[in-house]
């Protein structure tokens, strides 16, 4: 049973990982990564790590990759926007790839190949249980754990800073986006906008509509009167 699972999940993981790099369409590359992560989860099950396997599916397949698919479906196209890498970059990437492969192969041959005919490491009864992993994370690996969470926090804050709009939305508008704009977003089709109480252009909160408002505002009532009235 274990062997069957391994020889399904192992090659699938390798093929899917190759697909991530080889496939031209970014959407399929992402799907390939999903398949890779799922096969990795199956391999984790074989390694007596059910918790890691399930968390792998929950976090990577269920949350991270859904975001990748989301972004790719929205902005990704089938075309290669960069027009392919520069020749030097291409050779450099080959060199680095081969170097990494050699390192992994040497490390594997040098260390873990000895264990191939043994029974494997001795493991306790509750090996890989949530309790044991939690205990290890909060005692022996506390520092790396905290460092990783801090890194994630920095990345999240950085993303927010990068994504924030510094200036107003309309051309020529030079206004910081206030926190209030985000708490009560405009341009969402609310009743207040429907009756014309607010300008539905995002970022221009509570700018009252007057016939002379700039681009983006709906035609004011005065204009409509001109259309069905007599021509001048």
């Amino acid at each position, binding site marked *: 049973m274990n062997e069957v699972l391994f020889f399904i999940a192992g090659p699938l993981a390798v093929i899917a990982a190759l697909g991530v790099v080889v496939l031209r369409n970014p959407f399929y590359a992402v799907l390939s990564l999903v398949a890779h992560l799922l096969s990795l989860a199956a391999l984790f099950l074989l390694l007596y790590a*059910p918790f890691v396997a399930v968390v792998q599916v929950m976090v990577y397949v*269920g949350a991270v990759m*859904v975001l990748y698919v*989301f972004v790719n479906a929205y902005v990704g196209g089938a075309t290669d926007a960069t027009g392919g890498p520069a020749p030097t970059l291409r050779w450099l990437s080959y060199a680095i790839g081969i170097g990494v492969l050699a390192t992994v192969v040497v490390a594997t041959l040098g260390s873990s190949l000895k264990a191939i005919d043994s*029974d494997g490491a001795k493991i306790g009864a509750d090996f890989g*249980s949530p309790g044991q992993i939690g205990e290890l994370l909060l005692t022996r690996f506390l520092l790396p754990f905290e460092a990783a969470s801090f890194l994630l926090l920095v990345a999240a804050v950085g993303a927010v800073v990068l994504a924030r709009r510094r200036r107003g939305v309309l051309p020529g508008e030079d206004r910081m986006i206030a926190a209030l704009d985000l708490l009560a977003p405009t341009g969402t089709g609310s009743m207040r906008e429907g009756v014309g109480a607010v300008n539905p252009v995002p970022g221009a909160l509570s700018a009252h509509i007057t016939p002379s408002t700039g681009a983006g505002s709906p035609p004011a009532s005065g204009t409509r009167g001109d259309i069905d009235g007599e021509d001048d």
Partner: protein
Amino acid sequence: MSLTPAPIAEVGFYEPWWMQIVKTLVIFGIGFSLVPLALLYERKLLGRFQNRPGPNRVGPFGTLQPMADIFKLVTKEQFKPRGSIGWLFILSPLLAMVAALATFALVPFSGRPQDIFGTPVGLYGLDSSIGLLIFFAFSSIGAYGVLLGGWSSGSKYSFLGAMRGAAQLISYEVSQGLALLGIVMTAGTLSLSGIVEHQSGMWFILPQVVGAFIFFVATLAEINRTPFDLLEADSELVAGYMTEYGGGRFALYYVAEYVHLVMAGAMFATLFLGGWQLPFGIDPPGWIDPIVVLAKTALIVTLIVWIRASLPKVRYDQLMSFGWKVLLPLATLNALVTAVILVVTDK
């Protein structure tokens, strides 16, 4: 190559291998046959809520209506839009249905092994020490059914529905998980039958009423029910991610939806309503246990249908701000308060 007996995911099996295969088939069969029942129940109930009889033509009291529906869908032509991506278009509904049905194996229907043909059988598909996490893993795989189905249809309505779906499912999954942290900390286990056993004194709905509320609301969003049915949003997006689907493939999405409905009830009954336990120390014989679970499930399903009959849809921005600005902080606070209380009252 002689490893110690390999328990994948530390599963409490009582049965020989043939019984596990039988159990698999039975769970699959029960899961599948609950779909027409739930379908009929919802349509009948919605009819009564709207002061009309509901389906009453096919069979006695309209009881064969779901069979007629399913027969119609299955015998229809399987068409595929020209702009669709073939294999993804076919795979997605299957993915949605399999992920939905697989969660059914996690519901524990009884605490003690029942004697069936002289073999003790545990009335669940899988009693893992991390059952709750497996439930979330399957529900996140189910999200791909929606996402890929909408994307591969090659239609803007499907696409918009799928994108809404991705955002909604991710947002509410966080609150759904955090809401359960309270009961996981109290019970001290992630095993579903362990959680039920811990409720023998008091059901978790009483001490964890906030968690129950958050979980219920987030589940409504996760299983795409009113007032959070923005993935379909028939008033705006035709039918959302399943606009381009028809016939048998549409039926698969439909099956997934009703399995989700039943599963939402079963999970809530298991986590907050004490599963197979009865209140006031009543201890019925073992064969009553599954009936108790199903009765509690039906109660929650009724509540969900009631909500569908009563509430309008929320707007998309309301959905997002409610999820991130109300439910998530509330769920975090609930987990925090529970943790503090647990530490303070620690024996």
